[in-house]
């Protein structure tokens, strides 16, 4: 629309067009600048405000190192589990016709529309001291809430749909002929999946895994509810950001935040690269694009 249209241009046509163009670009950049670019830049500025040495020192305090380790460990458990679930669910939904399929797909989406705080709350109500299984767990001397298992469960719940949601539409679109041919030629189920299905879904699978991982490492609300904020023990990186910020240790808070931002940027770069490879652009990561 940058070229003049119509057989007879109205007076001042080109000028008005240029004005609209400039206004649209100006408003867009100003909005994105104020609400997105300046805050993100502020994270970097504050992280390095007191120099590189202070930055490194802030990242190597025992509590922060423990938080980084806990975040990596949580993601290392949650992402493979949700990937296994996602692949299994996508296989069942895409390769078979059964009653209740739509209900299943809707229920898989459910965690997307639930507040992270609710995702934490439900596990406190199940496993907390006054929860349904609280007394029983106390007898066994097992703690789930305010401990590592609670953090894993809450993270599992908030990242639940990511892989399944990416795979289901792709596998539905691909149909079943290739797999049916492989099976009728004598291939086993596992061989069929690894040799026929997996090569054709590897990019969407990776896409889902990357988004799942970003959310798992960055989740705040759900984990905040079940963690109990025990320093060095049940504090993940986002919770460590909160603790340091509330203690006015801004260098420390923004140093940890800068690591999480690096994770976000790496996620975006990988995501964009996959979109370029697969030729799919402008996608809503959640519902609505199917």
């Amino acid at each position, binding site marked *: *629309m940058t070229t003049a249209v119509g057989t007879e241009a109205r007076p001042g046509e080109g000028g008005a067009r240029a004005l609209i163009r400039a206004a649209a670009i100006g408003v867009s950049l100003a909005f994105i600048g104020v609400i997105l670019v300046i805050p993100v830049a502020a994270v970097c500025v504050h992280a390095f405000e007191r120099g590189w040495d202070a930055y490194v020192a802030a990242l190597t305090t025992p509590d922060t190192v423990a938080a980084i380790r806990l975040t990596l460990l949580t993601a290392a458990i949650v992402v493979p589990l949700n990937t296994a679930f996602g692949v299994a669910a996508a296989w069942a939904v895409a*390769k078979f016709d059964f009653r209740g399929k739509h209900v299943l797909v809707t229920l898989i989406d459910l965690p997307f529309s*639930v507040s992270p*705080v609710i995702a934490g709350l439900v596990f406190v*109500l199940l496993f907390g001291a006054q929860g349904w299984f609280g007394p029983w767990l106390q007898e066994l001397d097992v703690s789930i809430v305010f401990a590592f298992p609670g953090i894993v469960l809450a993270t599992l719940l908030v990242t639940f749909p990511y892989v399944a949601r990416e795979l289901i539409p792709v596998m539905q679109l691909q149909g079943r002929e290739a797999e049916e041919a492989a099976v009728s030629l004598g291939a086993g189920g596992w061989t069929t999946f690894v040799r026929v299905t997996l090569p054709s879904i590897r990019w969407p699978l990776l896409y889902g895994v990357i988004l799942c991982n970003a959310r798992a490492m960055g989740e705040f609300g759900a984990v*905040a509810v079940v963690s109990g904020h025990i320093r060095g023990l049940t504090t993940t990186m986002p919770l460590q950001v909160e603790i340091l*910020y509330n203690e006015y240790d801004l260098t420390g808070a923004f140093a940890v935040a800068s690591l999480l931002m690096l994770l976000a940027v790496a996620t975006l770069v990988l995501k964009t690269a996959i979109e370029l490879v697969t030729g799919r652009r402008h996608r809503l990561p959640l519902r609505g694009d199917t």
Partner: protein
Amino acid sequence: MTTARPWVQPSVLPGFGLTLGIALAFLGGVVLIPMAALVLKAASMPLDDFWRIVTEPRALASYRLTFGASLLAACLNAVFGSIIAWTLVRYDFPGRRLVDAIIDLPFALPTAVSGIALATVFAPTGVVGRWLEPLGIQVAFTWVGVVVALTLIGLPFVVRAVQPALAEVESGLEEAAESLGASRWMVLRHVILPAISPALATGFTLALARAIGEYGSVIFIAGNLPMRTEITPLLIVIKLEQYDYLGAAALGLVMLCVSFLVLLAINAINGWRTQRMAGRR
């Protein structure tokens, strides 16, 4: 093997029982049983108590803020998100691809990070807050701050929903309208808006749904004063910290019901879009 299962179509492919079993076990264990625990907990209290908890003044004030700010943020995103989508689809300018990629940042950025970043930038001494202070606009620790945070996290939903719809509007249609003498306003009103409105509705609702449940990016900038800048998810957390499980469950159920309503709205809009698309062919 198939005779025993009248609810599944026969297929030569293996692994149905196994994969569906895994999917249902995960779904049940991670999502459904925990959600049921919330509903049962809330249902275990007498209706009077439930009603008293969910309608106490502090809770009502938190609904007003949560839903009001979410609605306002979604409206802001509908306007500015559409302008941004328009800019990205229609114009080429230096850095367009970078701006396009940055739009997704709120999806990937952990909410605690955007929370402390916004709180710092919009504080009265912050980079942006410093300029707004003399104008009498206070963002941090007021409801305005809540709206700013919810706008940030909702922005990608509208932009990403509207972008493909805008790209599909045939510019020939606009040109035809213009050559027939339609003003720019008429083209916008009668050609472009009708074409993108279903996508815009989807983006708006998704942004709204995300905003209603948001916690991390809001609590740092909100100031969290009871009755004034306290969102409902925070009130749930406060009740939990006071070991008031029943109160937390009651408010949780209210939020869960609202989420379901929004989910229904999203499905309805999607149905409407599919119908329109079918009608066009």
